[in-house]
C-alpha cells in the first residue's frame, strides 16, 4: 500500500486498517491452509494462536498401520479449538504412503473436523523421505525443480473435487497420469475407471447423512516408477459405508446385541447382500462391482477403510479399528507386471 506523501498520522491509520484486513485474511487463510510448513510457526498464523504439536506415527500410512494413523487423526480432531494451530509433526517419520497425506489434507480442509483451527504440519527431516514427500503431489505442482535445476514431472498428484458431482474426465486424467509413468504410454484402465466412478457415485449418493449430495471427495495417485506401480487412493469424509446402509430388522438387532460386528456387515455389503439405502432393488451394486473388478484382476491390493472397519481384500484381512475413521477410503494398485495386458503392451 502506498502511503508516501501522506501525513504521518494518516499513514499510521492506513497501516492499522491494512493490518486488520491482513490479519482477518490470514486467519481465514489459515483455516483453509493446505500447505505443510517447515518453520515452527507458519508465518501466516497470528502469533497469539496456541500451537499444539502431535507426533505422527513413524510409518505414516493408513494401509499399513491403520490403527496408528486413525488414532493420530482422532487426536488432531480432538485437539481443535478456536485460535489454535494443530501441527501434525512428520519430522521423525521413517516412511509414509500418500493415503495418509490424503487423509491429513482432507480432514484439515473439512471444517466439520478442523473447526476454527488451522491444521498444518512439519515436513519429514529424513532426506529420502522428504524427496518422496515433496514429489507426492502434496504441494499441488505437477513438475518439481530438483537440486540440479531441472524440472521433472512429479510422481504424484493429489486432487480435490468439491462440486459434488461425478466426473468421468477427472478419472481419465488420473489414469493417464498413471499409465504414462508406469507403462510409458497413455491408455485406458477399465477397472480403475469403473472403480473411480463407483467411488464418486457412492460419495454423491451415500456419504451425506441426509441423503443430499453434500460431500467433497479427494483422490490421489502416486507412481513408483522404479517398481512400476501406481497407488490410487479415494476418500470422502462422510458418514461411512456402515452408517449409510439399509439394514433389515434382524440385522439391526444383531448389531445392537453384538451378535454381528461391522466386519461382517461390510463383507455383506461388498457381496451385495445388503441393499442400498434407497430401498430400490436395482441399486446398491456399486461396491460389489468394485470387488468384482478386483477379483477379475483389473486392480490389485484393494483396501477399504470405513467407520471402524479395515478391510484388506487381497489378504482377506478384516479388522475392527479401536478408533473410528470418519469417512470412506479406498486404495488399489496397478502394476506393470500384473496389468500390462490391459494396455495391450507387448512385453
Amino acid at each position, binding site marked *: 500500500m502506498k502511503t508516501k506523501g501522506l501525513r504521518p498520522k494518516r499513514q499510521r491509520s492506513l497501516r492499522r486498517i491494512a493490518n486488520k484486513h491482513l490479519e482477518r485474511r490470514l486467519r481465514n487463510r489459515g483455516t483453509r491452509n493446505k500447505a505443510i510448513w517447515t518453520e515452527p510457526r507458519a508465518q501466516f498464523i497470528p502469533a497469539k494462536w496456541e500451537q499444539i504439536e502431535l507426533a505422527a506415527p513413524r510409518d505414516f500410512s493408513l494401509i499399513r498401520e491403520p490403527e496408528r494413523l486413525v488414532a493420530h487423526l482422532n487426536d488432531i480432531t480432538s485437539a481443535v479449538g478456536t485460535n489454535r494451530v494443530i501441527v501434525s509433526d512428520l519430522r521423525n517419520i521413517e516412511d509414509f504412503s500418500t493415503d495418509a497425506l490424503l487423509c491429513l489434507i482432507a480432514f484439515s480442509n473439512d471444517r466439520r473436523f478442523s473447526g476454527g483451527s488451522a491444521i498444518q504440519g512439519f515436513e519429514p527431516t529424513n532426506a529420502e523421505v522428504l524427496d518422496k514427500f515433496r514429489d507426492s503431489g502434496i504441494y499441488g505442482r505437477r513438475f518439481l525443480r530438483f537440486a540440479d535445476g531441472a524440472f521433472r514431472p512429479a510422481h504424484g498428484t493429489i486432487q480435490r473435487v468439491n462440486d459434488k*458431482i*461425478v*466426473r*468421468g*474426465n477427472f*478419472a*481419465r486424467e488420473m*489414469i493417464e497420469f498413471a499409465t504414462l509413468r508406469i507403462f510409458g504410454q497413455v491408455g*485406458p*484402465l*477399465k*477397472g*480403475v*475407471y*469403473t472403480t473411480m*466412478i*463407483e467411488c*464418486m*457415485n457412492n460419495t*454423491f*449418493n451415500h456419504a451425506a447423512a441426509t441423503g443430499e*449430495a453434500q460431500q467433497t471427495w479427494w483422490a490421489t495417485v502416486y507412481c513408483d516408477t522404479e517398481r512400476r506401480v501406481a497407488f490410487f487412493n479415494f476418500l470422502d469424509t462422510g458418514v461411512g459405508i456402515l452408517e449409510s446402509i439399509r439394514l433389515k430388522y434382524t440385522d439391526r438387532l444383531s448389531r445392537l446385541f453384538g451378535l454381528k460386528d461391522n466386519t461382517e456387515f461390510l463383507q455383506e455389503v461388498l457381496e451385495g447382500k445388503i441393499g442400498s439405502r434407497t430401498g430400490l*432393488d*436395482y*441399486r446398491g*451394486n*456399486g461396491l460389489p*462391482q468394485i470387488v468384482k473388478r478386483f477379483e*477379475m484382476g483389473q486392480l490389485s491390493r484393494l483396501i477399504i477403510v470405513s467407520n471402524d472397519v479395515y478391510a484388506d481384500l487381497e489378504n482377506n484381512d478384516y479388522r475392527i479399528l479401536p478408533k473410528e475413521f470418519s469417512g470412506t477410503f479406498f486404495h488399489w494398485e496397478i502394476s506393470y507386471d500384473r496389468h500390462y495386458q490391459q494396455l495391450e503392451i507387448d512385453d
Partner: protein
Amino acid sequence: MISVASQFSEVPGPRLIEEGAFSGEAFLDQQLRPAFLAAESDGATLMIDLDGTQGYATSFLEQAFGGLSREFGSTRVLKVLRFKSDEEPYLVEEITGYIGGADE
C-alpha cells in the same frame, strides 16, 4: 447401431443427470430410447457398440438398459437389442442381467 464412445461419450458417467455429465439417464433419453423405438418399428435389431470408452459404472449401465426394460419390458428390449463388447466381453452378460432383472 449406436457407438457409445463416438455418439455419446468416451467417459460414461453416473446414473442420473443430476449426478454428473454423460449419465445413463442422459444416454437413455438422448440415444437409446429413440433408437430402440425406431428399430422396433422397422422390425430391425439395434446394435450397441460398447467399445472405445474408458469404462462403465454399473449404475450407468443399469439406468440405461435396466431403465429401458422397466419402461418397455424385458422381452421387447431383448428382442431388439444386440451388443458388441470386444474390450469387456463380460459386460454383455451383465447388461442382460439388468434388462432381465428390471421385470422383477
